[in-house]
């Protein structure tokens, strides 16, 4: 038995406590990734049992193994092609019938199944008693282990069952006997399948016969290509329908439920219960056709506050630590090694640290977002939110759940892209992710504010508001257009959704989920961003005229400046065809707020962007990091408290003061020199066109890498091409249209 490797899959309906069991089995030895070629989360963990190395694969939560959603196909393909030694089916005792539907399908696949009968709090609260031995007998001897997710009861028994299954690899056949007519046709099809070795090597014949009769999209369209067999299946289905008056599919579903009913009725005794549960009472308000929407909007506002404001102090702190002490230490270390002032120092501090830092500062934002989403998901509200928003989002061809990513996009596009994970269907996810980039993220705001105040002073507020509005309009119009072109053949997903009972969120699970999602982003995005930062740094370091030295060259004389000059004429029709403007836009690919930084570097050289009056020593730095972290925590708490006044202040007539723990107030940014330079180099109309371009053009590279991580390279290329084109057209329309209307001055 030494060094034997056993593969176990964990299957179950959504919300049955599957991840609790997965976590309890594998502890922290987990790995999160995506399924090959699919964007469904794949979790794998390890477990050691007396010298047996067990790989536990957490399959996506599904209701069945049909081909309705990508999750179902992923789960099914794993079981068919990876031949796990056993599948643990986690079954919620509170929903036994529906949960056993998946179990019967697993049994039909002829894979060894272990049923983990999870007595959820809800099941116990209802006073259900389930006879595990009778359930096991009803399922043809499939082991049934009672577990209680919240206290780990049954875990040892489950481990023993895994060992037994691994040792014996005993296969069990489901005993679902279908209607006689159906059985006759199944037998015929089974014979036909058994004559084709290519199929019997991969599939269980009876299972395949059932799938053929069910007219399973994936099987009939892809897996089985034998025309004679497909024709035989169609003929069989027609015979069944003409003889019985109902189609084969109905018979199969009915057969499974009839089997389940007989198993359940012998094993379960339930007390008479109140028809209306507490959850129903809550739903009467939260999903109400009138109150539902305002409540939803209020909750989304809170999520937005969490991501945009509560995380901000920690973001600022990380940013300060990375651009301050960390950069200084690296420079000092390199200086001590004799590389002071060299290109290596510039590469490490300007590209590597700045690039990786650019990713790390997103960590607090993502954690805040995932915590908020996790609480909404775990409490059961997310399903209601989708229900409430469905009608509104459907107007532009989106699913109810698309609202959350769009809203999060106002804070930051990166978590918005990841927030699309709550959508079940891949097309909905792609379309939503495509649109979230038009929501003006927090990084675009400084660009609007600096340019806006330079040209329009106090009235820039309505301009900024107009830009936000324009982003929303463009997103809705793009969604409307895509739904009629690219996604034309994808009718809107009909809305049917299970509403899990409400419950208090389990913070451990929420945190684990949050952490695995956040760290996944950091690992994946880090590499690409590092490479891009180094690339742009190189462009700025390589001189194009003689005399200048590598990495010691004015922006205008670098390859970056030269390329910007080449690109500049493209923007002439939009009114900002200068190399400075196009250079700022290129650097904005790193992060949109960099546009302002680059402009101040180019237009106002000589004003150092960091005060280097005296170099603090290591001890001062460490103390500074510590105290500023403490300050950031206090500010985070302040932001949490301030959610209350900010929320109440929305109501007209209420004006509650916001808490100010440190008495710091707002610091004025020193941008006056830049503002003066801007008014000399742009006309007001060109400035507006420039802002429109900044709003619409290619999202920052952190977003791009997030999108690539989620949807692949092709999607990202389309996104880049579309946004560049749209931004250019938008800016040109604004500029040329403005000239025509006489705003040229």
């Amino acid at each position, binding site marked *: 038995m030494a060094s034997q490797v056993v593969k176990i899959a964990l299957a179950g309906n959504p919300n049955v406590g599957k991840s609790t069991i997965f976590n309890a089995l594998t502890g922290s030895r987990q790995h999160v990734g995506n399924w090959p070629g699919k964007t469904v989360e794949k979790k794998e963990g390890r477990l050691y049992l007396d010298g047996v190395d067990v790989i536990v694969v957490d399959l996506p939560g599904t209701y069945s193994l049909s081909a*309705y959603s990508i999750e179902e196909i992923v789960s099914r393909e794993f079981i068919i092609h990876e031949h796990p030694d056993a599948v643990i089916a986690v079954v919620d005792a509170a929903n036994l019938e529906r949960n056993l539907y998946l179990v019967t399908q697993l049994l039909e696949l002829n894979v060894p199944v272990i049923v983990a009968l999870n007595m959820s709090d809800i099941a116990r609260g209802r006073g259900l008693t389930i006879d595990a031995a009778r359930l096991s007998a009803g399922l043809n001897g499939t082991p049934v282990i009672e577990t209680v997710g919240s206290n780990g009861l049954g875990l040892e028994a489950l481990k023993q069952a895994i060992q037994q299954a691994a040792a014996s690899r005993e296969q069990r056949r489901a005993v679902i006997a279908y209607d006689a007519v159906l059985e006759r046709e199944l037998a015929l099809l089974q014979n036909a399948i058994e004559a084709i070795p290519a199929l019997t090597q991969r599939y269980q014949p009876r299972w395949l016969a059932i799938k053929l009769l069910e007219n399973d999209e994936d099987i009939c369209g892809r897996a089985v290509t034998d025309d004679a067999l497909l024709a035989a299946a169609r003929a069989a289905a027609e015979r069944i329908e003409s003889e019985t008056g109902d189609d084969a599919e109905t018979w199969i579903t009915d057969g499974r*439920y009839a089997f389940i009913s007989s198993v359940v009725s012998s094993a379960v005794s339930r007390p008479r219960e109140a*028809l209306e549960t507490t959850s129903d009472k809550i739903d009467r308000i939260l*999903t109400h*056709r009138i109150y539902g929407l305002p409540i939803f909007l209020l909750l989304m506002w809170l999520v937005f506050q969490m991501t945009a404001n509560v995380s901000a102090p920690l973001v600022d702190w990380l940013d300060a630590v990375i651009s301050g002490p960390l950069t200084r230490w690296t420079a000092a270390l390199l200086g001590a090694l004799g590389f002071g002032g060299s290109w290596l120092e510039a590469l490490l501090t300007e590209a590597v640290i700045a690039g990786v830092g650019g990713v790390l500062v997103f960590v607090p934002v993502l954690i805040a977002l995932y915590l908020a989403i996790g609480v909404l998901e775990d409490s059961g509200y997310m399903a209601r939110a989708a229900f409430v928003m469905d*009608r509104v989002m459907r107007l532009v061809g989106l699913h109810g759940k698309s609202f959350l990513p769009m809203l999060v996009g106002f804070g930051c596009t990166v978590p918005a892209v990841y927030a699309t994970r709550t959508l079940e269907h891949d097309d909905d996810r792609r379309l939503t992710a495509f649109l979230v980039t038009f929501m003006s993220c927090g990084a675009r705001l400084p660009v609007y504010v600096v340019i806006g105040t330079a040209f329009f002073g106090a009235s820039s507020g309505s301009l900024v508001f107009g830009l936000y509005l324009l982003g929303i309009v463009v997103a809705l119009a793009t969604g409307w257009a895509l739904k009629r072109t690219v996604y034309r053949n994808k009718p809107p997903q009909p*809305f049917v959704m299970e509403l899990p009972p409400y419950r208090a969120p389990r913070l451990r699970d929420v945190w684990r989920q949050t952490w695995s999602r956040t760290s996944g982003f950091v690992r994946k995005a880090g590499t690409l961003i590092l490479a891009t930062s180094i690339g742009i740094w190189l462009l700025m370091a390589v001189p194009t005229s003689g005399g200048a030295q590598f990495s010691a060259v004015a922006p205008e004389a670098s390859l970056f400046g030269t390329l910007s000059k080449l690109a500049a004429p493209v923007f002439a029709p939009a009114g900002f065809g200068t190399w400075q403007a196009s250079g700022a836009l290129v650097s904005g690919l790193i992060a949109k707020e960099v546009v302002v930084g680059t402009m101040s570097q180019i237009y106002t050289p000589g004003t150092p962007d960091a005060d280097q009056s005296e170099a603090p020593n290591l001890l001062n730095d460490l103390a500074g990091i510590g105290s500023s972290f403490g300050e950031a925590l206090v500010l985070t708490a302040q932001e949490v408290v301030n959610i209350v006044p900010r929320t109440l202040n929305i109501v007209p007539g209420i004006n509650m003061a916001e808490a100010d723990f440190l008495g710091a107030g707002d610091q004025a940014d020193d941008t006056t020199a830049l503002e003066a330079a801007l008014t000399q180099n742009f006309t007001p109309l060109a400035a507006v066109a420039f802002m429109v371009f900044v709003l619409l053009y290619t999202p920052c590279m952190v977003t791009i890498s997030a999108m690539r991580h989620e949807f692949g390279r092709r999607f990202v290329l389309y996104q880049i091409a579309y946004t560049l084109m749209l931004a250019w057209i938008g800016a040109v329309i604004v500029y040329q249209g403005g000239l025509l209307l006489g705003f040229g001055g």
Partner: protein
Amino acid sequence: MANSFPLTFVSRGDHVTLTDIRAGDKLRQHLGNLGLHIGARVRIVQTDSADGLILAVKNDVRLALARATAQKIMVSPVEGGV
């Protein structure tokens, strides 16, 4: 079937049984997986929610359906409840 009507014409607390699902194979299969197969008995939990209604299947599972989907499901009343 006689006395059969779309699921949109029910009131809160009604007990009905599914008689027909007028939808494509894929949706029908998905509904079946969720417990909404022909012959299934359901109880209407809410009718004034969002744009649709909430059903109880086997008294345990709560399903939310958009009105457009509910229109495709034909039901007939059941005496005595689930």
